[in-house]
């Protein structure tokens, strides 16, 4: 499933895809069954037929979590890391949507809302990268202008590209530090004013 969205910065058209509703990544729901306890991935045992409907107000924080995941998917796509984007979309994002619906009822987070989220986040990712492309050369050309403190300057030593955390096994300290430093560099990247 997918559709086209227009990137704000350059008017580029990009294809975005999203997980289908109720993807069978978790235990199947069977409303006809009597109350059966089942373990879902959030670590809790819950009765499956008790979770279709929730009277709780929609959990804003959970929705933000889904939006954040969609943002990451869009950012990965924008950076050309399509395989990683797909992995995130089929794994963590699909589970987040599933868990949300298990919690708040099958009609929560409807497809139309997801589609909107994708369009918004795809645009933000494109804007952010476009702006970073423009600003980073300027900032690196004039390091002193961007500096606010005169007492000390941390000189970042050129570093090898960020190393991904190994899926299994014990991560070595230099790899952990690489990941940390890469995340720091990413966090320092300027974001467009609209990206809130």
């Amino acid at each position, binding site marked *: 499933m997918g559709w086209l969205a227009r990137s704000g910065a350059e008017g580029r058209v990009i294809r975005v895809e999203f997980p289908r509703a109720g993807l069978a990544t*978790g235990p199947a729901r069977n409303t006809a069954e009597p109350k059966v306890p089942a*373990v*879902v*991935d*959030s*670590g*809790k*045992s*819950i009765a499956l037929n008790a979770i279709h409907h929730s009277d709780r107000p929609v959990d804003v*924080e*959970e929705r933000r*979590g889904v939006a*954040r995941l969609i943002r990451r998917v869009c950012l990965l796509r924008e950076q050309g890391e399509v395989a990683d984007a797909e992995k995130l979309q089929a*794994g*963590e994002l699909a*589970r987040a949507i599933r*868990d949300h619906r298990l919690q708040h009822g099958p009609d929560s987070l409807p497809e139309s809302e997801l589609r909107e989220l994708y369009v918004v986040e795809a645009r933000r990712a494109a804007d952010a990268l476009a702006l970073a492309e423009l600003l980073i050369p300027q900032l690196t050309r004039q390091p002193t202008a961007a500096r*606010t*403190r005169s*007492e*000390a*300057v*941390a*000189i*970042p*030593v*050129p*570093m*090898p590209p960020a190393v991904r*955390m190994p899926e299994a*096994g*014990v*991560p*070595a*300290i*230099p790899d*952990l*530090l*690489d*990941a*940390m*430093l890469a*995340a*720091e560099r990413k966090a*320092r990247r300027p974001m467009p004013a609209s990206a809130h």
Partner: protein
Amino acid sequence: MTTATTIEKKPLTATPNVERPAEAAPARRPADKKRVLVGFDLGTNASCVLAGPADGRDIAVSKVIPTVVGYAREGLVDGIIANNATTLIGDEALQHRLQLRMVAPLEDGIIAHAAAARDFIRRVRVVIDPSGTAEIRAVIGVPANAGNTAREDIRTGAAGVFDRVLLIPEPFLAALGFRDDTRLGQANYVDPVTNSLFIDIGGGTSDLCLIQGFFPTPEDQVSLAFAGDAIDKLIEDDLQRTYPNNGLSRATVRQIKEEHSYVGPIRKPIDVKVLIGGKSHTLELGEVIGRACNQLLDRIYPALTGLIARAPSDSVAQLLQNIVITGGGSRIRGIDTVLQQRLADEGYESPKVRVAGPEYKRFVAVGALKAARGAREDQWQHLLA
């Protein structure tokens, strides 16, 4: 739930102690100097410093130092303070507090008084390397939600004192320090760096942080402005209501709390001897203390489950085995078992909650020294004074 916000602050322009520059600045060091690695937990109330050579596992210096700087008051008589020192830190400063103007360089985990912080760090260096000739590389813990300005303030304080630094989030270092390296790779050992949830209950804040093998982002943490100080206040207010004008100081209340703190079902009687109006009285404080401490648990619990829900689903089962409580609040009796029971009662699969133990003050520095020993040459940052 209060998601941790980045601790941002205005750059420090006021330098309250410039009139008293530190007198122990290290001399410039030759190129063939000995290298010393340092793990440094620069804390609000207490700092911990561990230092040792780059190779091996030796620790040459291991100290917990109250994070306070004392400046000699004008007109102080010669000989009152050893060597007529004008700037002291830690216990030495506390011992001479009547003769000194005391400054706490940090507030809420970040530098609030730049000059005092710098003086503190300079004197810590003297503890590590009295000759002032070694090359010092320090890994320094920073609150995970510290903003760029707060980080820059630490770099500024360390510039010209340490040769190279690396700033790493404290919860991450705590996990690294807590990691039992001898058990790494064992099938039944879950590495806290790879998958754990740390709950640090301090004086001002309780900080919960999800650690899953990488640098925790602001979304991986929750910071609650409810911790030890808030419990003191609840107990104090309760006592004030029941025994108005009791004259018990906050320090006494804190002492009572630390001696009798517990969570879970109300325990009675807890008889505590206090002096009120110059006379000795025995008060039964079982309910007062229990109620106050249980409030902490009631605040932490939703934040904890909120973070568990954030973890990728296939990591949750293991994560539930690795919930670690640290900070002074981890000394509250029963906090691990009651929290664990509450999780189990709510259906979480076989949760295991542990307390870090009496060495909790050192874990960040232990992790920092491990990180220093593991860091690659290109990962260190140079500092220019």
